[in-house]
């Protein structure tokens, strides 16, 4: 329970630091019972804030990387379009193959039906 309260208060204090407010006194007034636990952590948070600072990439690096990424973006796009085109072509071939198969089946069925019909039409031979 106490640990959870301490964790909440530490997080709040770090948020205060981020917002540029560095008043620990309000915490001591509100939570005097936690002061001994919190004070070293607040001091440490302050030190971390002063030590871990944002850094800027060099403009040369930023510009060079940007142009490489833009080139790569266009290459990716071209590859993707080629892939899509290939998939579309493959789709047409597949559809043509299916239609061809269906036509062949239909033709075969028609031929078979017709030949059966002709057989049925042949008059019965009479043997003496």
């Amino acid at each position, binding site marked *: 329970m106490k640990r959870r309260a301490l*964790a909440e208060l*530490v997080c709040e204090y770090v948020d205060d630091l981020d917002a540029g407010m560095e008043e620990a006194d309000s915490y001591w007034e509100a939570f005097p019972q936690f002061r001994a636990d919190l004070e070293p952590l607040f001091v*440490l948070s302050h030190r*971390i804030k002063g030590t871990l600072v*944002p850094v800027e990439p060099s403009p040369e690096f930023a510009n060079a990387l940007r142009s490489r*990424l833009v080139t790569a973006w266009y290459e990716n796009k071209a590859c993707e379009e080629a892939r899509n085109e290939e998939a579309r072509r493959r789709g047409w071939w597949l559809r043509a193959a299916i239609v061809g198969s269906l036509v062949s089946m239909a033709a075969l069925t028609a031929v078979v039906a017709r030949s059966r019909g002709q057989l049925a039409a042949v008059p019965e031979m009479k043997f003496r």
Partner: protein
Amino acid sequence: MSFAESDELLAERAKTDVAAFGELYERHLRRIYTYIYHRTGNFHDAEDLTEKTFFQALANLQRYQIQAAPFTAWLYRIAHNIVANWHRDSGRRRFSQLDGLAPLSDLSADPVAAVEAEEEKVELRGAIARLPADRQQLLILKFVEQMANAEIAQVMGRTEGAVKALLYRTLESLKSELGKSRDVGLDQARRSVEESLQRVLGRRNEAKSAG
């Protein structure tokens, strides 16, 4: 009044619009670079891994889905994985002290204080670098990127409560680590003073006996 387009919508647009991708890059370059710099400790590797991060993001952009994760969280995860692989591939290479950062300020005003302050920073950076990767990540996201706990939770794949608890535990362990190293430092200093005294006394005794 103009509203900035959200990262997520921009990412959707970047799938078909190179300008949108450029905008995303501009928005996130400094943050990703800073994050990687603090995880690797030098500019050269920071540039190298930042480049890898953005190229990987570009390669996977078509698969990015708004519903799955915010764009920032998605990008940080890529960066985190790349840094983790870098640490693994480089044979548990030691973190090198941050190069070129924070020149000794106000040397003219109080050189001793400036040197001491710098030494404290070096000590703290070393202690942070010895923390597990997730704790380093948390400190950078919280203290440098000033992210809200909810955002950090999304990046790290944890709950907000877990992030708060981890921050508390991280500060606690850092505090004890720094206390330990300070004790070791004091012991070493005490020992070297004692050794120096022994040498001086020994030399004085030798001089006395020779005289």
